[in-house]
């Protein structure tokens, strides 16, 4: 039986997904072992069945992220937070630093779209299309929102790290990652 894998990028940059693609021709080996369910790799937007492994890139910055993450948690046996944003919030979490303002979210949006001298915004408006998901009051890591089984740090984690981790999860053989793969300085 092939393992079923789902992947998604929430408040991330798809860098972790690109890093997974960097396993290059080993993708062919991977596809002998797994079948992708919901994932940007195959553009499936919904789950077609229960998955063994869910890989989630990025943290939660809006309501849609939360909704998607809840779906992943409900449909995946093992949930893996992939990369710095998923584990710690990454770049998006920098907006949490505006915590001492009276209205942090407003201050964040006004700085980003109105006040900064580097912004060209002739209509002087903050994007608010009804199709845009509402932002959360701050950025949450995956573990803030759901139970996470494994976390892979790195920005992005190298393709080798992802390959070895996936192998271990698929075969069920726990292995120690070599030092070069888990040092980040």
């Amino acid at each position, binding site marked *: 039986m092939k393992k079923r894998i789902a992947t998604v990028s929430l408040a991330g940059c798809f860098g972790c997904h690109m890093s997974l693609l960097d396993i290059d021709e080993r993708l062919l080996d991977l596809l002998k072992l797994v079948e992708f369910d919901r994932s940007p790799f195959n553009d499936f937007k919904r789950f077609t069945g229960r998955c063994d492994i869910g890989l989630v890139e990025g943290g939660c910055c809006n*309501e*849609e992220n*939360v*909704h998607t993450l*809840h779906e992943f*948690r*409900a449909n995946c046996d093992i*949930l893996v937070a992939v990369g710095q944003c998923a584990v710690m919030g990454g770049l998006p979490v920098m907006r949490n630093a505006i915590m001492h303002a009276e*209205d*942090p*979210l*407003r201050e964040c*949006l006004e700085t980003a779209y109105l006040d900064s001298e580097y912004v060209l915004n002739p209509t002087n408006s903050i994007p*608010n299309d*009804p199709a845009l*998901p*509402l*932002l*959360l*009051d*701050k950025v*949450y890591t995956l*573990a*803030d*929102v*759901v*139970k996470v089984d494994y976390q892979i740090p790195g920005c992005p984690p190298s393709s080798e790290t992802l390959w070895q981790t996936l192998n271990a999860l698929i075969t069920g053989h726990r292995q120690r990652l070599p030092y070069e793969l888990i040092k980040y300085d």
Partner: protein
Amino acid sequence: MPESPLSKHAKAEQAVMAICERFGNDRTRLLDILLEVQARFRCVEPSLMECIARQIGTYRVEVEGMVSFYAFFSDSPRGQVVIRLCDDIIDRHAGTEEIAQVFSRILGIGFGETSPDGRFTLEYTPCIGMSDQAPAALINERVVTCLTPARAEEIALGLKQGLGPGELDLPEGDGNNLNPLIGSMVRNNIRLRGEVLLSDVPADAGLHKALRRPPDQVREEVERAGLLGLGGAGFPAGRKWRMAADTPAERRFVICNADEGEPGTFKDRVLLTERADLMIEGMTIAAYAVKAREGIIYLRAEYAYLRRYLDTVLQRRRDQGLLGTDADGPGGFDIRIQMGAGAYICGEESALISSCEGLRGEPKNRPPFPAESGYLGYPTIVGNVETFCCAARILDRGAAWFRSWGTKASAGTKLLSVSGDCERPGVYELPFGISVRELLDLAVAPDAAAVQVGGASGQMINMSQFDRRICQEDLPTGGSVMVFSAKRNILEIVEYFLDFFIEESCGYCTPCRVGNVFLKRRIGKIRQGLCQPEDLDYLRELGKTVAETSRCGLGHTSPNPVLSTIANFPLVYAALLKINRDGREASFNIQSALEESRYLAKRRSMIYDPTYEGD
């Protein structure tokens, strides 16, 4: 004609320069300089920091660092009368909140505020060493205890009508608190006098016997007696003395640690009041034993009401030829009093030395130990008030006599400060090895359900453990024993202790500065019912990390309330934990996370507001 701001500032600078000069423009006396500036101007104004720095040859930022570090300093003016209400957990249980409301209502300001006319400041402060007569407060230096709403009202009205703190009509204390030099309503609450310290002790008998023996024999006697430091850490006093004596140096120091800040401890307060001579005698013996000529008593700011009395005792002893650099008496040893400025961490010996040197009360790296390189880099013995008192008794009666009390590892007797839910709170002098149950019987605490032994940094034990014994082999303590009945909320107590450590951490090392905050957050989550059983693993693991990786004793012990309650009160935790079946974190609330966004975007959520139909 109103004074011009310029000349006012120039006058202030002159006054500050005069203060600096009085301390010889000595950088190492910065703490004293700032205490005087604070007392004079009710703050250390930023514009005066530069002047102080110039005068003593340092940088403004060093001065500012001091002001921000110590609780008793401020950079904006405090009121003429500062009311510091103790909000220790024992005081809270005794009704701090009600008292706070009375002060707030009558003075018209909240806590942390100064009245617009500059007359009053209201503040909370951690344990002021009066847990046996809680709730208590400091009004400037004056201590008021056993506060009731009625007494608080009377005091607040009196102050408002213009009475000074010293003019308030308060009841009398007992024992030496009646001494006009102390004149305090504090009660000693000595419940049990043991043979070593609280029974009648002959004046200077130990000192005279010590002086007839060579210094090395004095040190050996203390070492043979097995005297351990009685402030909490329990390091063998004799070994400290030997290290200091064996380190070659031109100067050596003896420092008495009277910075009793461990919540629930007040036995040093009683010794300072009733056994000041014995303590100084012990310091003098130590000085003789290690050939030190200079001594310091580091007195916590909260005990400033004892300062005048202690100064008088020191002067009398100088007059008697028992102290004084010129005296031909015991080796020409003299003592000065160093006032603290409200920092728990300064009870840690290396932080205390930093503080005496005019630095922020940050611990130093060890080794070298203070006994090898301490105050100003010279070998320094730092000992607790009680330790020096015991040393004097040991030299009088001998090591064997001292060893006839206590256990193998903990010789002698111990002063225990009992507070909380018992009928007879106060100080008990008992031999080491006494069980908690025996102590609770003496203090009449039939409802005791939990006992915190060793203060905030100690262990919380449950009823089935009341037969455990107070000694190094089992439950070590610096003297604090807090009794809690079944109606107290264990996790509220734990959370309070963590708040205390967060506030008092010096901030130097990350495990302590950050780790304690994380411990507290998770305990808070548990109290709200938002945690799962795995969260206990997190607390255990984080607690262990903080304890193992912190730089000094504060962080080594701050996780204790968490770890000991998880071990000893598992059911209290279990009742609040939920097993999480859908994998969602209970603490994450999407509705509140969206609240601000809904308001800003002026629309509702398409996903989480199910009744939403669109405009």
